[in-house]
């Protein structure tokens, strides 16, 4: 094992105010179970889980609430004992509604129900067959905890003919304010090591690169200690502080110098699998201790939170409970954000539950927010310089403004990773990222419609 500095620097990127000092040095605190949990059946990328419970049912911690529906899907478990109050659509952080199971955790267990937590049998990862490990990762409901929520069991099982040469463990955490991964690396470095060894077995012994941004020396030191005596090709890669260092494509380039081609290519096409440090630690717990993924670490921060904290809370805890745990608000919050300031979602209410992918909850005062205005582009080229995908964002924005989606597509808008670097650096405060989102949405809808038309034409002939 050795520590190296990243030899590859991608083009573009920006330096937002990180504001990590608010929560960087605060140890993870545990929020014991709130009176009500709202467990979304769609916490992962892909099809929502199929609900297995109905109102009035008593469920036990670890019990399956919803089963995996398809290939890209995951099971959802009860984070605590309680009675199902309702199964109804609830607002999600991203603005949609998805079915959720509402649990009253104060209800006593009825006669004849064993109220002890359901755990899986611990596995010895050194001897257990690969299939058992994969199945365990699936049964424990583990998905990517960095944000996208891609089911981990799918990612760790590359399609035939594709081999994973590099396992990249993403500890960059380049989002401003967020420190959850940072704390996990400091406090649970041994779990990450075990997780890495399990994943190495599952993936057929790839080289391991653990990517951490240079502004986390404590995390790097903790990982160095934990990985000191590990065998094989393992490197801790120290990345320069630059947003979006945590983007999958850019991290692959920064650590191993490989470039993922345009969509629909995936990291596995260049022999890489990227997993977030939190996910890796969850894999270790699931295999070694049989623990199902029922809680996660979330950073509650921002200048309108009384006492910012890194909170380990049961999945389904409402934002209101998280904020109350952190001493409530300070001053008047002007914006509430689920996630970080660069890619997080603004939300309208604190009655939204956490999910497996909630990495942060921010409350910002009026002083820390800004408003978009669609002034004319002055062609300063800052967006182009900031874009890590090297897209001509200014031209894309103008094309979208005139509803010319074909032009936007020819400017490679589909490669946009929506990192926000363009909007961040635009002196005219143009909502460029939103322009890209709009173009991508319209083009995707058109492609879907064209596919449907082809399918229906085939069906009729």
């Amino acid at each position, binding site marked *: 094992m050795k520590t190296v500095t990243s030899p590859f620097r991608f083009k573009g990127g920006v330096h937002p105010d990180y504001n990590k000092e608010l929560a960087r040095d605060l140890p993870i605190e545990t929020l014991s179970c709130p009176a009500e949990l709202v467990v979304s059946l769609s916490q992962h990328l892909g099809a929502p889980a199929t609900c297995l419970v109905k109102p009035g049912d008593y469920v036990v911690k670890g019990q399956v609430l919803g089963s995996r529906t398809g290939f890209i899907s995951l099971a959802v478990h009860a984070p605590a004992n309680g009675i199902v109050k309702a199964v109804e659509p609830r607002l999600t952080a*991203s*603005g949609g509604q998805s079915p959720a199971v509402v649990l009253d955790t104060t209800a006593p267990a009825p006669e004849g129900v064993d109220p002890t937590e359901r755990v899986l049998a611990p596995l010895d990862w050194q001897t257990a067959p690969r299939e058992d490990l994969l199945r365990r990762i699936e049964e424990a409901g583990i998905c990517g905890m960095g944000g996208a929520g891609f089911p981990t069991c799918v990612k760790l099982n590359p399609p035939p003919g594709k081999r994973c040469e590099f396992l990249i463990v993403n500890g960059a955490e380049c989002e401003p304010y967020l420190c959850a991964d940072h704390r996990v690396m400091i406090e649970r470095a041994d779990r990450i090591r075990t997780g890495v060894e399990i994943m190495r077995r599952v993936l057929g012994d790839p080289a391991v690169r653990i990517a951490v941004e240079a502004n986390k020396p404590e995390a790097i030191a903790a990982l160095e200690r934990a990985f000191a005596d590990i065998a094989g090709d393992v490197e801790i890669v120290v990345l320069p502080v630059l947003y979006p260092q945590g983007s999958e494509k850019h991290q692959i380039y920064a650590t191993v110098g490989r470039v993922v081609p345009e969509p629909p290519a995936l990291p596995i096409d260049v022999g890489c699998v990227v997993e977030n440090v939190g996910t890796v630690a969850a894999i270790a717990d699931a295999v070694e201790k049989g623990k199902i993924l029922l809680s996660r670490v979330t950073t509650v921060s921002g200048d309108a939170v009384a006492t910012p904290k890194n909170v380990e809370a049961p999945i389904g805890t409402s934002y209101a409970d998280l904020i109350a745990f952190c001493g409530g608000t300070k001053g008047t919050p002007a914006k509430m954000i689920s996630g970080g300031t660069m890619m997080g*979602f*603004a939300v309208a209410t604190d009655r939204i539950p956490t999910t497996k992918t909630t990495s942060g909850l921010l409350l910002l005062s009026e002083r820390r927010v800004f408003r*978009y205005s*669609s002034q004319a582009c002055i062609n300063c080229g800052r967006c182009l310089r900031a874009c890590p995908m090297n897209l001509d964002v200014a031209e894309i924005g103008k094309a979208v403004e005139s509803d010319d989606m074909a032009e936007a597509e020819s400017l490679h808008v589909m490669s946009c990773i929506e990192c926000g670097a363009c909007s961040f650096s635009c002196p005219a405060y143009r909502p460029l990222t939103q322009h890209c989102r*709009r173009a991508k*949405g319209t083009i995707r809808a058109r492609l879907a419609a064209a596919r449907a038309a082809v399918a229906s034409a085939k069906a009729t002939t």
Partner: protein
Amino acid sequence: MLIAIAVIAGIGFVGALALAIADRYLAVKEDPRIGLVSAALPGANCGGCGFPGCDGYARALVAGKAPNGACAAGGAAVATEIARILGLEAASVTRRVALVKCCGSRSETIRVGDYNGLCDCGLAAATAGGDKGCRYGCLGYGACANVCPQHAISITDGLAKVEKRLCIGCGKCVSACPRRLIELVPADATIHVLCNNPVRGPEVRKVCGTGCLGCHLCERNAGGPAAGHFTFSGFLAKVNYENPPTDEQLAAKCPAKCISVDPHWESAE
């Protein structure tokens, strides 16, 4: 001077001659009925029929690849005319117009946030579910108005309104609305339920002063379930347009005031 005039006129004459010859000998032969059908169509190129413009539909009709009566804009008159040209049986066409099933204007429905971004309903809905308290109502950012080929939709007080006189029933707004609250309804129907929120009455009351409560009073006043003038999905009443109610008193009797008589299109000729 005279020479210049002569030269210009000469060039013009030669050009005109070339064009005339080209028109005579290089003309593309096509079924003359295409031109006739094309002329019979309204020429709005709205795309409501599913073909690229009126000319596209005319070609498909003549080729027998499209059913007559797909032109909502033209209605029965155009269908009859086309049937005459092509020697088809006359198709029956009911004129349909778009109806925005929401009457929760800014002065009736609460806002739960201040949206700041592009004026587009889909994007606003994707930002924390939109700034409107009601998750089912009209956001008022004009996605429907932007696609309307007839400019028949306007946004007033945060609410889209369709001008019946201008609407040709092409249905573009129906698919543009991210909340899916626009429906094509028969133009002669006069009673409409202007709400799209299927949740329980008390929940609706929290966000909107004029949302359907699901109280079934309209159904009772219109002769009960047996009369079949209304259907219900969740806690939302819907007009059964196969068998529409005609009693205009229903609007006054609706406790939520979300039943309307011929809304928004008073300016009909």
